């Protein structure tokens, strides 16, 4: 039996009706549009295109298990003292004798900045986490033979949430930098069929 893929005519717009009719989607869209309307202001004609900033941070899983994260961010909406930002991050950390985690994640959230540069932010998102055992691994075959086990790592979904505090030095023309610290909670699923919570602290700098 043959299966035919549905053919879409060139130029036909995607059918969003069924998706938009879902109450949860409409509610989420309404919330985003409302916040955007509150924060947005007319762009100045002389505003130059914004360069994507580079973010580099020490990532301490449970504070002391060292790691690094690099990323960038995009201001989706900016107005007055507030902004909605979208971040993209790549990172990793080492929990000695437990595991090594490598991840790619994205977060979206709000940031409020005071006139003198201090800012607070709340971000949430999701990512992909791949963990490797931090140590040699062995397997035992049914006949009792012990052999080194290859470790290709284990994939996991990584929900994240971060609460941050920072200082935007660009706000007062000191330097095109922002210093920040974030308390981050992220999950690892599945782990023994459940969600393993991790806590982390980030100390970083954003080059703007």
């Amino acid at each position, binding site marked *: 039996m043959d299966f035919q893929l549905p053919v879409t005519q060139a130029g036909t717009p995607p059918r969003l009706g069924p998706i938009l009719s879902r109450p949860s989607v409409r509610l989420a869209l309404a919330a985003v549009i409302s916040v955007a309307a509150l924060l947005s202001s007319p762009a100045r004609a002389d505003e130059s295109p914004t360069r994507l900033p580079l973010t*580099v941070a020490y990532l301490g899983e449970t504070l002391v298990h060292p790691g690094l994260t690099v990323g960038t961010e995009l201001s989706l909406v900016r107005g007055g003292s507030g902004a909605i930002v979208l971040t993209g991050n790549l990172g990793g950390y080492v929990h000695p004798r437990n595991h090594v985690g490598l991840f790619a994640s994205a977060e979206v959230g709000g940031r409020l900045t005071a006139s003198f540069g201090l800012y607070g932010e709340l971000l949430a998102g999701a990512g992909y986490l791949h963990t490797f055992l931090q140590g*040699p691994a062995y397997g035992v075959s049914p006949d009792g033979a012990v052999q080194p086990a290859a470790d290709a790592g284990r994939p996991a979904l990584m929900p994240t949430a971060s609460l941050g505090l920072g200082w935007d030095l660009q706000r007062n023309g000191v330097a095109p930098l922002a210093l920040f610290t974030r308390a981050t909670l992220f999950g690892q699923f599945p782990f023994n069929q459940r969600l393993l919570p991790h806590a982390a602290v980030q100390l970083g700098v954003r080059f703007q």
Partner: protein
Amino acid sequence: MRTLATVALLLAALLTGCGRFQTEGDFFFVRSAGADLPVWVRGNTDSGVFMVVLAGGPGNSSMSYLSPVTESLEEKYAVVYWDQRATGVAQGNPTPETISLAQFVADTHAVISTLRQRHDVQKLFLLGPSWGGTLGTAYLLEHQEGVAGWIDLDGNHDWQKNWDFALDYVKVHAERKLAAGEEVDTWRGVPEWAESMKGTRIISDNLWKWQRLCTKAGGYFHEPSNSPGLGAELLLFSPFSFGAMLTNNGIVLEKLLSDDAFYDALQMSSKLSRITIPSLVLWGRHDGAVPVAMAHDAYDNLGTPPEHKFLVIFEKSAHMAPFEEPEAFLTAVTQFIEKYR
């Protein structure tokens, strides 16, 4: 930028390089049926004498058993700490079907096989506290060969039989409190409840109620100040993970309470006669979790010849004699190992 990178590197070197948990001993994983089991071998491996710790709970990490008393043992022997599937800081994503007593036995065998490959194991002893006593008993029913001695520390070799003894413990404690007019609100109705629970299959609600009462009665620590707690070194500078402890804690217990085949396999009193290797039965007089009546049940039913089995009761201990009477515990274990090494 260069300064930041230097600081980050120094911090990383400092944090990864410190702590005995991160540097000492031989550390490796055993991959078994979807689980990654961490194994930590410490102490005097040159002695050829290895004591394998089977952690309790089920759910505990064997790393939490590291204490001055086990470090004293490490001066003479190698001590092997490892975490069972879905407990402690064991990793992986094993399916619910593999949470069974048979798989725990298979895992133990895999760990011991790997240990024998990596080290010159001449004499091997098993130490099974509490749930570790359940696992140790199950293991020895299948694999006594090559095990020089069994150290059963407050081990629960028969969950249904122990349930009645454990209910009796809180009942007697409640009756004493009520007779003395102490903590009446806490203990009122407990004797009747405990009596009504005898002979029933353990279910989680009843088990949690009993556990709260047992803790209040001092059934885990005879002297609460003897509890070692979780130190900062274990929480921060070790393979231990608080998140993993929270996630893993309860998985095995929930499974065994809901899986009749698993639960039925835990009733091993009538099978103890098949265990014939030298055995040391250690118990706290005031143990409420696995009361001392179970010590006599173990000692009497083990098939070990009388001249090769020993019973030691710690008079000032509840469920955690290594922390409550470390010297007496150390003496008993050392004498036993020296006799059969």
